């Protein structure tokens, strides 16, 4: 995952204590590493509240961790990107293991965040103490951890059980998956119903059945199956929130069942509201409605009866759309001066046909009868996988991003929202030329973080200009990526969505579930033995007799408490009833 340090040297500093050097970079002072660490710790902890959780970035030889521990009473975690450093440190410094400090070495970012979030409780936010030389060796790794932990503590919502159900194909399928991944990284317990599994069946039905009416009939049944699964899972797993995107498989019946059960539903309508008008019937069926367009649409929703609607622009998943180093061969295969990935909409056909003479690669499907564009079309207009898309965004000198329109011959003068591609190219650190959109300036600094064109003439001029000025391209691309990482990730969007939802919801739905830890504690009072037993189930959110008994029996030390005995008894009754088929 991470490039391992080439060479680790450990030797005595002037003060006599050990210091460390990795491939020529000193991780600690050559003179007095202990004193150095104390100085850094003191400065860094100056404005940290007493009980706040502190994350130390970079273990080195552990001096900073030791210094912080001596000064700070709150909980501590130490993150080290390089597993080899941690191993060397542990062998050189036997005093290093503190049971009350969470050490995380060489783990993937998401895991680190998950571990810290689950182990170090946070009320306000996390504070960071950086061992600068360590951070310098793996800057992306540490900054990513800071970013995700900041997002996580910003949401400041208890761990939720969230059910995300995806469409079975189309543009909103990856969006749903990105949302699910982001919610997981934010520390929630996410069940993803990835309905792509239905796609082969869907294609079969589409190709076998000729009657449109019949196709609809069968596909509706398919939708009912997926929707029923949502409702039943929500019941069985004490789901707090059902999150859906445009085209997710759901039925009005399922939504009303969820509403009856008190499970809130949220819907991200990632489509153009004037073009796709089905939102009108669905507006009030969802509890929370998120849109990629604001103003008029929000008032239209309010008029239809849903006032809990919020503008939520699209974003990028930096774990998917990321800078990549491509091999020479890949650079040739995917690279070009100008590139466009996307379907062959009318306005694109018109605009791109003016790009004759450039080194232009056109990727994507629905380009039948491309005419003059035929020579540019790659792979006969096959669909391009996300992984390949990332490579293309990375390696093209200029990525074109023209928002689709079937009603215009060029740039849509009324276009407002930004497509996913805008954020994704930027997240890859790719350079893009995007058509001017109403919301563009809210999201990026035009000219500094993104480059824009208004019409085909300007497009050609800018292509020539940026091809001639690679350093400007790089600067804009870098700034664009920073902006996405800071503000336009799915984690940020999901945080905003959850904050919005829980400004209305009084408590997560599962807390109302009688078998949630709190629900049971409420009823069963303050028996300490029982409290300890139930608290041990907090991570799962909901208490099941099966799981609690499994834990009791696997412990195998000491005598059973009465509370444990009663749970074992309940489990035996459960098994007995199952055996008798009483359920």
């Amino acid at each position, binding site marked *: 995952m991470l490039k391992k340090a080439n060479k680790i040297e450990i030797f005595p500093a002037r003060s006599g204590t050990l210091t460390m050097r990795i491939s020529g970079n000193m991780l600690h002072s050559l003179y007095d590493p202990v004193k150095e660490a104390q100085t850094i710790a003191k400065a860094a902890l100056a404005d940290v509240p007493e009980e706040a959780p502190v994350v130390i970035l970079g273990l080195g030889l552990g001096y900073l961790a030791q210094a912080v521990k001596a000064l700070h009473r709150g909980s501590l975690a130490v993150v080290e990107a390089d597993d080899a450093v941690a191993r060397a440190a542990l062998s050189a410094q036997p005093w290093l293991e503190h049971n009350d400090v969470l050490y995380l070495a060489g783990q993937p970012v998401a895991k680190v965040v998950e571990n810290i979030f689950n182990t170090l409780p946070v009320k306000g936010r996390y504070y960071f103490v950086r061992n600068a030389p360590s951070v310098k060796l793996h800057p992306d790794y540490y900054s990513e951890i800071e970013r995700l932990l900041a997002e996580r503590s910003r949401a400041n919502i208890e761990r939720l059980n969230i059910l995300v159900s995806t469409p079975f194909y189309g543009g909103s399928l990856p969006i749903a998956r990105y949302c699910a991944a982001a919610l997981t990284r934010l520390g929630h317990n996410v069940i993803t119903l990835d309905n792509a599994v239905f796609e082969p069946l869907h294609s079969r039905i589409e190709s076998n059945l000729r009657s449109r009416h019949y196709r609809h009939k069968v596909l509706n049944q398919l939708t009912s199956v997926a929707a029923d699964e949502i409702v039943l899972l929500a019941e069985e797993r004490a789901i707090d929130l059902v999150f859906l995107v445009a085209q997710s498989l759901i039925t009005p019946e399922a939504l009303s069942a969820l509403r009856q059960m008190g499970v809130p539903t949220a819907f991200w309508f990632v489509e153009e509201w004037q073009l796709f008008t089905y939102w009108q019937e669905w507006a009030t069926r969802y509890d929370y409605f998120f849109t990629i367009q604001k103003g008029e649409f929000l008032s239209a929703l309010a008029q239809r009866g849903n006032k809990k609607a919020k503008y939520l622009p699209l974003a990028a998943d930096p774990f998917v759309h990321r800078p990549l180093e491509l091999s020479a061969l890949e650079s040739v295969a995917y690279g070009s001066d100008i590139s466009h990935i996307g379907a062959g909409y009318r306005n694109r056909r018109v605009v791109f046909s003016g790009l004759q003479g450039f080194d232009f690669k056109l990727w994507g499907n629905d380009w039948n009868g491309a005419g003059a564009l035929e020579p540019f079309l790659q792979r006969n207009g096959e669909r391009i996988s996300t992984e390949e898309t990332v490579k293309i965004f990375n390696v093209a000198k200029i990525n074109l991003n023209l928002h689709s329109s079937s009603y215009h011959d060029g740039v849509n003068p009324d276009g407002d929202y930004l497509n996913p591609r805008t954020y994704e190219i930027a997240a890859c650190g790719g350079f893009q030329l995007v058509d001017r959109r109403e919301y563009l300036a809210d999201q990026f600094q035009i000219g500094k973080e993104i480059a824009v064109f208004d019409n085909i003439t300007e497009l050609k001029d800018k292509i020539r200009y940026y091809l001639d000025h690679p350093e400007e391209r790089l600067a804009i691309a870098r700034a664009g990526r920073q902006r996405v990482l800071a503000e336009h990730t799915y984690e940020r969007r999901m945080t905003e969505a959850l904050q919005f939802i829980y400004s209305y919801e009084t408590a997560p739905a599962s807390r109302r579930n009688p078998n949630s830890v709190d629900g049971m504690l409420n009823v069963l009072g303050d028996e300490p033995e029982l409290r300890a037993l139930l608290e041990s189930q907090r991570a799962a959110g909901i208490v099941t007799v099966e799981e609690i008994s499994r834990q009791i029996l696997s412990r195998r030390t000491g005598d059973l408490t009465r509370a444990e*005995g009663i749970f074992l008894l309940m489990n*035996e009754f459960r*098994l007995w009833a199952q055996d008798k088929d009483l359920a």
Partner: protein
Amino acid sequence: MKRALVVNIARMGDLIQSASLLSGLKKHGYEVTLLFSAAFCKVAKMLPDIDRAISFPLTSIVMPLIQPNGRLADSYIALKELTDRLHSDGYDLVVNITHTHFSAALCRLIDGKRTIGMTLDKQGQKLVNGRWTNYYLNANLNRHYNRFNLVDIHYKLGCIIDGDEKNVNANVDDNANVNANDNYNGRALRLKVSAEAFQKTKYLVRNVQSKARLIGIVPGASTVEKRWPAENFAEMLKILGAQLSIYPLIFGAESESELCASVAAHIPAALNLAGKTDLALLAALIKQCDLLITNDTGPMHIAAAVGTPVLDISLGSAMAEETAPYGVGHIIVEPRLDCFPCLPKMRCGHHSCHKSVSAQFAAELAQAMLTNEFCDAIAARYAIDAKTYRTAFDVDGFLKLTSLFRDELTPRAMLNAILKEVWKDVLDGRFEAVKDVSAGDIAAQIMNEYSLDNYGFVRDWMLNFRLALDELKSLAQEGQGIAGRLKMICGRNGQIAQISELGKRSADIDADIIRLAYKERDLMPLATQFTYAKDGIDGADLHSLASQTEQLYAELAWNCQVVGRLLSEVHHKLAVQLSSIDLTSRDAGPNIINPLWLSAYK
């Protein structure tokens, strides 16, 4: 006063079958509390000799556990309140005859001074206490080797404390209350039928002409496999009705209404009471019947307990040796089929056993029972399809099924006759007494019940089986030696390696015991008794564990030796008997007695 709690949260039949245990405990001087499933309140009220009955709210505890989003807290609270109350009652003795894992966990929480039956140790591991409890589990696994009725097992399980039955015998009351069904040992199955229930049911039977016989019919049963077909019941009643004046009452639960109606449809005189009687009324009605003709059901046990003769058509997974109606003179019919009895949860595809008992046969038996005639000749006529037994008590007061037709002696029949006598003593913990078991009595009993026409086959089996018994005995002795050494060294320092080596060897021996039992199936009852007993070893102290283990190996070796000796002696008696018969008239030939072989075993 000492307090005993009997945990019996099972089916209705089991509840009735525990009546003798409850009375036994009472005679032992206990104040008796019964914990029973709330569904059988009416039955619990009819049980004599209990001081207190606590109903267990099974449904309200189980439903929250199996319904989606059921409130676990409800189940928790109900269990906590109940177990706290039972715990604080401070029972001196808890007898668990429910034999389920949940009842084991329940007994852990009740935590009486002493628990017999399944329970959990303090760490939550399963524990089986008591030789008769081990035997119950053993008999469940090796049904073909069991010759004890459940009523006797339940009684013994709870009433044999430290191998001492003296108190019970001393207290046998021979007052007028003793039912005709009581055996002389004082073990009885009794239900009190309330005067009120009697009064309420009288009008139902008052139309009966004085000579009409009141016949109870129970066409239902817990499984389809156990149900003799409704048309057979109807046909039987027609045949019987042509011979005698009868008035049939058809009993069944609400859920069996349709089944009962299909019997009633063919018999205009019959009164279909399915779903119309609660258990108290049912008992009152059954008590007034002259005969109850039934599958293996709860009402059958009611009949036995109120003194009504039973004709039990025992099909499917029912096993008469275990569940026959308790008392003297009931008749049981079993199909003569290799697949019988089937496994308790099996779903049968052919129901051949339903055809093995014909309506004509049942009608003839019923008629004989109603007119106090012998059933033997009828049993012989139908012997090719069915076996017929009559219930009685043996000299030790155990229920006994006597076959009404002399079948050929089989190896298993011989082994079971011996095992039953051995178990009677060793399960009570009277190891010395077993020496007095008389081979002559067993031989006489065998000759009374079986024909020895094919004795050569039994003798050949016995030769092999004695070798297997010797092998099992030497394994047990080896195990005993190892456990003995373990006991000696476990107190000393620095013996960890040796202790773990001995532990491993002991485990190997246990595995060998099981393997040997699978090789020689007839060893299974002895081997299983041993393995269940090992489940009862409790404690953290190595010395005590080792000495308990040593004791169990010693018991196994002793049991092997006793069974082996009795086999030889019984064989000897049978052989002597056979030699006095003129062998030339038999085709079995010289196979039957080999004097050379005999001399070796004198």
